[in-house]
C-alpha cells in the first residue's frame, strides 16, 4: 500500500512529467490586465468581460465563481487560448497571448488541459483509448517527439540513476494513460467504454485525458454541472488533490457557490467584472 508521500511523488511525476521547473516557478501562471472581450451578434454587442485584471500563481487551485452569464466561460476560453481578447493584455504561462503571431493551438496543446461540463468521450473507444486521444494531436507538426523517440525502447535509466521498467515508464503514453486512470481511481475500468461508465467515472476519464499531455495548467468549466452532490465532491477532491500533490495550476469555473470554500482562492465574476 502506498503512503501519502509515495502518492504525491507519483502524482508529480505523472502529471508534471519531465517538465522541470514548473513546481518551483514563481512566475504567475495567468496575468490579465484590462482584459476585455466583446462579441457582436448581429446588431447586438455583448460585453462578456469588461476590462478585468487578475493574477493566478503557479500551483494555485482557483475558483472562478458567478452566476450564469457572468463571463466565467469567456474568461476560461481566453485563458485556455481558445479565444483572443478584444482589448487588454493576457499572459498565460509567460506568453502574451494577445500578441499577433502567437500560435495558440500549439501553446494550448503543450500546456493546457481542459475539462468541460460535457465529458465528450468517444463512445466507441475504451477509457484508456479516450485518455490517449490528445497524444494523437500535433505529431505531424513535430511535437510529442519525445514519445516517438522512446518508441520501441524497453527500459530506461531515470534521472536518479535507477532503471525504470518500460511497464512503469510514465513517459510512454499508454503507460501514462493507465497510470492516470489509476490516479483518478479508474484502474479497474480501463477497458470499459463510456456507455459502461457512470457520469462521475466519465468525468474522471475526462480529467485523466486532460492530464495526458502533462499540462502546466488545468482548466475546468463547470466540471460537476451534470453530476449529483456525492460524485461532485469526488471530482472536486480529485482536482484539489491534483493541485496540491502535483503542483498543477487548476482553475475551475462554477456557478455552485457552495464550493467556494474548497478553493485556495476565489475570483468572483458578475456581469463581466471581477467583484
Amino acid at each position, binding site marked *: 500500500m502506498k503512503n501519502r508521500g509515495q502518492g504525491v511523488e507519483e502524482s508529480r511525476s505523472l502529471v508534471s512529467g519531465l517538465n522541470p521547473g514548473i513546481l518551483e516557478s514563481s512566475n504567475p501562471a495567468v496575468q490579465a490586465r484590462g482584459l476585455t472581450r466583446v462579441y457582436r451578434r448581429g446588431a447586438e454587442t455583448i460585453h462578456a468581460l469588461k476590462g478585468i485584471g487578475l493574477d493566478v500563481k503557479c500551483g494555485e487551485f482557483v475558483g472562478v465563481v458567478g452566476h450564469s452569464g457572468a463571463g466565467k466561460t469567456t474568461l476560461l*476560453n481566453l485563458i*485556455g487560448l*481558445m*479565444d483572443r481578447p478584444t482589448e487588454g493584455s493576457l499572459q498565460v504561462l509567460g506568453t502574451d497571448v494577445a500578441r499577433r503571431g502567437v500560435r495558440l*493551438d*500549439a501553446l*494550448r*496543446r*503543450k500546456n493546457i488541459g*481542459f475539462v*468541460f461540463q*460535457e465529458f*465528450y468521450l*468517444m*463512445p*466507441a*473507444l475504451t477509457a484508456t*483509448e479516450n485518455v*490517449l*486521444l*490528445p497524444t*494523437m*494531436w*500535433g505529431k*505531424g*507538426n513535430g511535437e510529442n517527439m519525445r514519445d516517438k523517440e522512446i518508441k520501441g525502447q524497453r527500459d530506461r535509466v531515470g534521472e536518479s540513476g535507477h532503471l525504470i521498467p518500460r511497464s512503469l515508464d510514465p513517459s510512454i503514453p499508454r503507460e501514462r494513460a493507465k497510470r492516470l486512470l489509476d490516479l483518478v481511481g479508474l484502474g479497474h475500468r480501463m477497458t470499459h467504454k463510456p456507455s459502461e461508465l457512470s457520469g462521475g467515472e466519465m468525468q474522471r476519464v475526462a480529467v485523466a*485525458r*486532460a492530464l495526458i*499531455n502533462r499540462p502546466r495548467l488545468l482548466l475546468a468549466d463547470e466540471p460537476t454541472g451534470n453530476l449529483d452532490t456525492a460524485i461532485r465532491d469526488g471530482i472536486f477532491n480529485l482536482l484539489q488533490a491534483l493541485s496540491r500533490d502535483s503542483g498543477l495550476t487548476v482553475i475551475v469555473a462554477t456557478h455552485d457557490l457552495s464550493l467556494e470554500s474548497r478553493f485556495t482562492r476565489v475570483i468572483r465574476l458578475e456581469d463581466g467584472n471581477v467583484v
Partner: protein
Amino acid sequence: MIWFKLSFKNLIRRKTRSTLTVLGVAIAIAVLYSLFQFQQGYQARLKGELGALGAHVIVVPKGCPYEAATIALHGGKWPRYMDESLLAKVKANPGVAEAAGVIMDAVFAPGDKNVILLGIDEDYMKLRPAWRISGHWFAADSDVIMGSTAAQDAGVKTGDYWVVPEKNVRLHVAGVLSRTNTQDDGFVFLPRKTLQKISGLEGKLVLILIKARHVDQTDALVASLKASEVDMNVFPLSELLGTISSLMASTKVFVSAIILIAVILGGVGVLNTVLMAVFERTREIGMMKAMGGSRGDVFKLVWAETILTTVLGGLAGVAIALVSSRLVEAIIRGMIPYAPRGSLIGFSLPTLLMCVGLSLVLGLVAGFYPAFRAASVKPVEAIKAE
C-alpha cells in the same frame, strides 16, 4: 493504429448512413470493374477466337461484314453463299499457302439447343495443327467428327452413331476432338460434300480460311484477292479485329458515360454524407481542438474517414462485380451485336488495384471540402453551438 481505429469507429457510429454511403461507392466501382473487365475480356477473348481460326485472311460472301464475322467465328446459318469454284481461284493465288473452304449450317437439337455443323475437308485440318482426334479422320462420307462439348451435349462417343437433328441423317462418329478451349469445341464437323448434300447447298461455300505464304505480305494478298474476284468479301484477320473493335468502340462511349456518372454520383454521395457528419459533430470537433488538435489533425481525421469509406466501397464494389459477373455479362451481351464466347468478367489484380486506386482518389477529392470545413471549426464557437 489509434488513428485508423478512431476513423473506423467514427464510421460505424452511424451504421446505416455509412453502409449506404459505402454501398453507393460500391455500386459505382462494381459498374466500373464489370465494364472495364468486360472490355478487357472482350478484347482478349476476341483475339483468342480470331487466333483459333488459324487463318490470316478470311473470305466470305458479299453482305454485312459484322454478320460475316460472327458467322466465321461462332458458326451459324447465313443466307448468302459463294460459289465453290472460288476456292480454286483463291488457291491459285501465289500468296496463298493454305486455303480451306467451309460450308456451315445450324440445326436445332431437342431442347432447342443450337447445333452448328461445319462442312470441311483435309485443307481445314492443315489450319488446325493442334487438333487431337480421339478416333480418326473422315474415312467415309457418313463420318462425323465432334467437338468435345458437342459430343458431350449429344451424349455420343467415338464409334457411336449420331442422327443430325432436323435432317434425320444417321452419321458415324469417327472421332471426338480433345478439348481445344476454342469455338471448335462446340462444332460438329462433317465432310464438306456431305453437309452440302444434306443441307441442299451443293457447290456452295460460306467461308474460305486462308493462311498467307508470307504473313508480312497479307495486305498485298488481300488486295490481289479483291482484285481477282468481286463477288466476295476479303478480310485480313487484323481488319476483322478492327471491325468488331470499332463496333465495340461505339458502345465504349456509352459505357464510359455510365461509369463517369456512377463515379460522380458515388463521390457526391460521399461528400454529402461526410459533410453532414461534420456539421453534426461540430461540438466534438471543437472539443478535439480544445484538447490540442490542430487544423491539420482534424483535417487528417475527417479525410481519413472519407478515404476509409471510399476504399471500403471500392473493395465491396469489386466483390459485388465478381459475385454478379454472370448477370452483368448477360445484360451487356444483350446490348451488343457480337461478343466472344466464354466468361469475360473475371478476377484481375490490376483491375482490382485500379478500382481501389480510383476509390482512394475519390475519397481524397470528396473528403477535401468536408475536411476543410471541419478543420475551420473554431473551438469556442463549436462548444457554444448546441
